[in-house]
């Protein structure tokens, strides 16, 4: 039995220790906003916040997340996440949408640490979030827009 906090809710799950956190989120807790893309830490679709840092849930066995504080796309609720969400809608960022929960989580993490990121900061933070629809230009613009909102 593993105990963790997910989106401010304490949960216990009875699964083998090597079960990826992503499986637990989607199959046990029915939080299907977090997506599976590659399973090998190469795409970023499965990004969540774990203990305040971005984390790829596909390569996080649940035994490594025991006792952790996890936030998924469903639970993010900070000024930064709200600014990102508004900018994403205003810029019509998603195309198919598959990668977008990961993009939003990474963008929120970036703005939480660097409120006014440069293009280089954005490249460095977002390089592990692949978008097969190539929405990269809109993602960059939306992050800058969200930063302006936060500043204003």
């Amino acid at each position, binding site marked *: 039995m593993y105990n963790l906090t997910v989106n401010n809710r304490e949960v216990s799950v009875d699964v083998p220790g090597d079960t990826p956190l992503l499986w637990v989120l989607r199959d046990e807790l029915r939080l299907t906003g977090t997506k599976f893309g590659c*399973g090998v830490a190469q795409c970023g679709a499965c990004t969540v916040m774990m203990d305040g840092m971005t984390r790829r849930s596909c390569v996080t066995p649940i035994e490594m997340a025991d006792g952790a504080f996890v936030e998924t796309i469903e639970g993010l609720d900070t000024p930064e996440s709200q600014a990102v969400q508004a900018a994403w809608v205003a810029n019509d960022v998603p195309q198919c949408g598959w990668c977008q929960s990961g993009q939003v989580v990474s*963008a929120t*993490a*970036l703005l939480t640490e660097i409120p006014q990121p440069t293009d280089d900061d954005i490249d*460095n933070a977002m*390089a592990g979030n*692949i978008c097969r629809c190539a929405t990269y230009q809109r993602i960059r613009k939306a992050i800058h827009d969200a930063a302006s909102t936060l500043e204003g």
Partner: protein
Amino acid sequence: MKMWKVSTVALIAILSAASSGWSEEVNGLRTVDEFDGFTDETARSQALFEEMAKVIQHPRCLNCHPADNTPRQGMEMRIHEPPVVRGDSGFGAPGMRCNTCHGSENVDYVSGDGSIPGHSPWMLAPIEQAWIGKTVAEICAQIKDPERNGGRTLAELHEHNAHDGLVGWGWTPGEGRESAPGTQELFGELTNAWIEAGAACPEG
């Protein structure tokens, strides 16, 4: 006839024992007593460092000692994928720290062969400890220099090589990766012998 067979077996046994005595290696790394034959202590020390360099210059170790801001991956030392940067303190960039993907231990992939390496901490060596592109002599001088070895005395350097967990990861790199030569214990013994022989650096 039977006697002949027995003596042949005995001879082979003696020969193989002798040959392993002449060249004792553990996982491709020579043991310290292999260096007993030197009469010149400096030459012995230099030879010991050359042996240590088999570990130091193995891709398992070099990949995270780059001279630029990008770690490498694999035996061919290709650029890290996804693209990542050193960042402040060698832990990656805000929003994309090393531990975004690398956990506290190696994790087997559930959707394919191989594993993602992990250890706590997981980070790049500081830029002043860069090894990629350097000669063995340059690395030796760098490793002895407290300005470029994290402020370590030789005794602390031995301790680091013999017992540090992230150094030790080089011998437990997880499924799909070749380990560094030898063992961490042997690397520690070579380091100790090199220091006791005067911590001399190879020429050139």
